[in-house]
């Protein structure tokens, strides 16, 4: 059941990325390029995705997931240095190449070496993150 749900969710996600054009780096960069040929598509994708998710969150109240267990507890509304520094780093990479993690995986469907190189670098970065995290914590402790 968990695996079937994951396949359905992943397929919807993959179809949505394709249909919305978010696998195309020119559309993502077009949205960020406010001084160039600005492309508003990404805002519609975000809005379109937030609507069903908003109702999904409301449906979680007083219920359990289909497979059992519990829904993820709300995170404490704490904005720490990790959230800000990590998001800034992610945004810089996102702006440079126009790919975020979902489309980076989906880019494998399009063939070509570039997507593979990006994915390899991203996986390496994910592996290295915990070491950088430790350094950030030390810096924050001394600051």
């Amino acid at each position, binding site marked *: 059941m968990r695996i079937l749900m994951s396949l359905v969710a992943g397929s919807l996600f993959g179809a949505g990325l394709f249909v919305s054009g978010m696998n195309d780096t020119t559309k993502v960069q077009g949205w960020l390029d406010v001084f160039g040929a600005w492309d508003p598509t990404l805002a519609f994708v975000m809005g379109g995705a937030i609507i069903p998710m908003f109702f999904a969150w409301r449906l979680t109240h007083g219920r359990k997931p289909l497979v059992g267990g519990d829904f993820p507890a709300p995170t404490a509304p704490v904005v720490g240095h990790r*959230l800000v520094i990590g998001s800034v*780093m992610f945004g810089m990479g996102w702006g440079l190449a126009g790919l975020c993690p979902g489309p980076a995986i989906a880019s494998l469907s399009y063939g070509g070496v570039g997507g593979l190189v990006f994915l390899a670098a991203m996986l390496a970065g994910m592996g290295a993150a915990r070491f950088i995290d430790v350094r950030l914590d030390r810096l924050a402790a001394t600051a």
Partner: protein
Amino acid sequence: MEQDWVWGLVGGGLIGLGGAVYLLGNGKIMGASGIIGGLVDGSGRSTAIERLVFLAGVVIMPILLMPLYGKGTVSTHLTSNWGVVIAAGLLVGVGTRIANGCTSGHGVCGISRLSLRGIVATVFYILAGGITLVLFRQVLGLI
């Protein structure tokens, strides 16, 4: 071009539905960087199969949908500057793990839950992405 926003909205809706299935079915937040990152650092070993199945769905759907797309070849239009690709991949990998989320987790799932962390992360990665793109494209002319 003028219909791109419609496809954006439709594709976004599919992404949101995927997130809803993942949440209501498996009780988990559909975040691409978290699903991938758990495989990289081993923290998601117990759920490795459902993570891989999810990612398989993301890769397979564009391949299935491509023949239906009547506008000629589809491409991610990723830059061929490998220095940029590698630097961007590393930044996205490290950043999303430190911030504990990306466009899907913090953006779609976080904002729809009115999570302060999701909203703050999204503001920072969009600002960082926009500034980076404008700097490298409009000011430096490098990408």
